[in-house]
């Protein structure tokens, strides 16, 4: 009973602190006379404003009888342009239009630049995660190999990558290696992030493998399994389970670190945020939104890995 009351007390403290923090944010906004305008941010996330379709050429308009198709025949004699994707017509059959005139309006939802950026961030993170996991596994196995060449190469890789800042690696990857190999920005960004994360993944996998009792390898080998088979069927499945929590942490870092690729002009969530700030003049709202979206991404990943952990714990 006593313990229960105490739990109540401290839970109330927790909620009070959260409310206090929200109030602090609100009042600091007040202090600098900041006017919160969340409505300015929404069009950059989901845009519900009608989109006007403008004439690309000067010419004559032809509208079909059921008003679902619009054909613009340019005066210059080029091929006619057929437009079908619209909701409201602004012209009628036979009208003469000039370049830039509004022909029709399209209603409905369109995704804004912030969501575009979010999608780029998800893409970069996903590709990097998959490559980092594969590369990290290879480097981690090389790290514990008996072959001195493989082992030392892995150590050099891990030390070099962990010993230099990711930002510098991204610049080197884009301006030097990217130029030499002719990689575009997106590929350069993905490669830099994968190479960086793989160094940490390698160390996590190495420690995971080394945490498996040596008797497991001996038992597998005594049954006639080759070293690779023993690794694949016996050691790695166990090591994978043990390394899931630190891997989750590393992949959450990866999602956050992906914001650094904005320095090579990849329009990810962070760069989109920066662009929207200059267009909307609502920096606080935009950055809070961006932060929340990152939080949603990392939260989803962490939840997915927790689920996986639970499923794998069936044999415990």
């Amino acid at each position, binding site marked *: 009973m006593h313990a229960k009351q105490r739990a109540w007390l401290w839970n109330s403290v927790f909620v009070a602190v959260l409310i206090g923090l929200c109030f602090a944010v609100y009042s600091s906004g007040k202090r600098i006379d900041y006017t919160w305008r969340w409505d300015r941010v929404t069009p950059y996330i989901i845009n519900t404003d009608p989109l006007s379709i403008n004439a690309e050429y000067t010419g004559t308009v032809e509208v079909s009888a059921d008003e679902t198709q619009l054909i613009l025949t340019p005066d210059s004699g080029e091929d006619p342009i057929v437009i079908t994707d619209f909701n409201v017509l602004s012209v009628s059959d036979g009208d003469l239009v000039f370049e830039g005139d509004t022909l029709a309006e399209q209603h409905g939802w369109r995704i804004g630049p912030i969501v575009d950026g979010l999608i780029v961030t998800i893409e970069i993170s996903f590709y990097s995660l998959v490559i980092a996991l594969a590369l990290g596994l290879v480097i981690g196995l090389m790290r514990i190999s008996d072959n001195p060449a493989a082992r030392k190469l892995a150590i050099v890789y891990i030390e070099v990558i962990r010993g230099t800042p990711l930002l510098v690696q991204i610049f080197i990857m884009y301006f030097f290696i990217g130029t030499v190999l002719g990689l575009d920005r997106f590929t350069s960004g993905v490669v830099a992030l994968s190479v960086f994360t793989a160094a940490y993944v390698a160390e996590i996998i190495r420690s995971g493998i080394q945490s498996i*009792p040596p*008797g*497991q390898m*001996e*038992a*597998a*080998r*005594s*049954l*006639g*399994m*080759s070293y690779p*088979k023993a690794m694949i*069927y*016996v050691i790695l*499945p*166990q090591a994978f*389970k043990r390394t899931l929590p630190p891997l989750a942490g590393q992949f959450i870092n990866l999602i956050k670190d992906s914001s650094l690729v904005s320095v090579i002009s990849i329009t990810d969530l962070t760069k989109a945020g920066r662009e929207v700030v200059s267009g909307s003049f609502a920096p606080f709202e935009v950055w809070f939104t961006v932060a929340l979206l990152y939080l949603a991404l990392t939260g989803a990943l962490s939840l997915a890995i927790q689920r996986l952990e639970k499923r*794998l714990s*069936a*044999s*415990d």
Partner: protein
Amino acid sequence: MTKHSDDIIIASQVDKHFGKVHALKNVSTTVKRGEVVVIIGPSGSGKSTFLRTLNQLEEIDSGSLVIDGVDMYARSTNINHLREDVGMVFQSFNLFPHKTALENVKLAPLKVSKRPEKEVHESAKELLYKVGLADRMQNFPSQLSGGQQQRVAIARALAMKPNIMLFDEPTSALDPEMVGEVLDVMKELAAEGMTMVVVTHEMGFAREVADRVLFMEEGALLVEDTPENFFDNPTHPRLVQFLSKVL
């Protein structure tokens, strides 16, 4: 494997060091097909090390080992292939914790011998039935007692249809009341004519089941005799001393 001769294990002048420790000193012995050999000795005597050289879990420094007619250190020998013929049971069971009892038994036949799933499944069930675990097949090792785990481990080793079984102190990690169930399985195996090399502290098992008992101390093989002579008329002074402590 084809039958080459009656001597299924021929160890000659096996020598091994662990750093500065001279773990095996010129150990030579032969084991005949169908024979049960028990190795006894104080801890650190090299008996487990010697057993582990027989499937190359430990490599030897010098000497030679011929297993079922195959020279283990010949250039043409595939050690993985040789190990399929030599089953091993460990002190700490070493079951694969992420697989059920049945999957533990099935894994090597499926992945190493590439036998068809159906046949492997049936023979794995049969083996688990044989070691008395027909009702625990779907259990993970963590849900089994030590004795049950060790019996699964024996079934797992047998699944590769080996000609030789090595037992490395199979009952040392067990609670006393579970020792019997594991020894019973081993006795049954011995009765079926399996060639067995057993490192153990179970003197009763040695006396009852062994065809020959070996005594090792400080890496050297000192005595090799029938159980009757070994236990009732020991002559070697070191063995007399050892037996006076354990019996």
